[in-house]
């Protein structure tokens, strides 16, 4: 926890330095966040375009730095910028990279019993979740990645998505229901 607080403080200090005219201070932000950003983009668009989009995300962030709200983490802000670029990129290319990747990584078995016999149960669940995620529209998949894998908090996510906390909770609840259905479990209707 203290690591994250320290990182957030360092981020804010570096943003302030850049805004005060020290362009080179931006390098510290790039060094600190490039790994997470590239990993996030790899999951959204595949490995081929992830680094290019990560570069673009950093440049866009620099150009918009005067509009950054320091009450939210820099990490979240960068992830949202990268996610928007990924969404636009996929819309442009009309490709579903991860769909292909997931299908290749997890060969489909018509008979679940056969699949379970061949694989460890946890791995099987993971593959089924990956397939369910790959079948989602890119905006919904991005929401899942930001909320659950990157663990952005609700107010931050709602603010960046431009929707209310309530609307976001409903979306997330429906998303969880959908994914649970894909994994063969049922959930209640209350968000």
């Amino acid at each position, binding site marked *: 926890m203290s690591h994250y607080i320290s990182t957030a403080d360092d981020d804010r200090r570096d943003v302030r330095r850049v805004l005060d005219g020290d*362009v*080179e201070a*931006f390098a510290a932000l*790039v060094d600190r966040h490039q790994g997470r950003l590239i*990993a996030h983009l790899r999951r959204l668009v595949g490995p081929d375009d992830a680094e290019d989009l990560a*570069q673009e995300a950093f440049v866009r962030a*620099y*150009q918009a730095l005067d509009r950054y709200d320091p009450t939210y983490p820099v990490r979240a802000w960068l992830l949202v910028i990268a996610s928007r670029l990924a969404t636009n990129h996929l819309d442009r290319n009309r490709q579903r990279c991860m769909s292909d990747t997931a299908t290749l990584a997890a060969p489909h078995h018509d008979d679940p019993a056969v699949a379970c016999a061949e694989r460890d149960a*946890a791995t099987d669940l993971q593959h089924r*979740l990956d397939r369910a995620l790959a079948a989602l529209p890119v905006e919904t998949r991005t929401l899942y990645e930001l909320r659950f894998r990157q663990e952005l908090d609700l107010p931050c996510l709602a603010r960046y998505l431009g929707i209310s906390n309530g609307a976001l909770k409903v979306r997330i609840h429906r998303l969880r229901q959908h994914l649970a259905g894909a994994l063969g479990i049922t959930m209640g209707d209350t968000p």
Partner: protein
Amino acid sequence: MNPLDLIDHPPADAEPARNGAFSAQVMERVRQAAHRPSPAAPARWPWAVAAVVAALLSCPLPDWELDADLAPDPLLAAELLAISLVAGIVLLATRRSA
């Protein structure tokens, strides 16, 4: 493993190690961007000029030939100019607040 736990807490992806070449490329682009005017701040003066010209064109000018009483005089010219400027400022303010 509980499937809901898997949905709510998916395993984190392995992050690539810090790549100096990547950082250098980003910083090169950032330095270039730093020397360009921000695209988010386009010049507003063309709109101001257009608004003033539009206001000038919209003002009814007297027909000197038909009405000899309205001979050009500095006071009238100053009034027309003042009206045009006010109209231009109002138009500009309307556009900026839209």
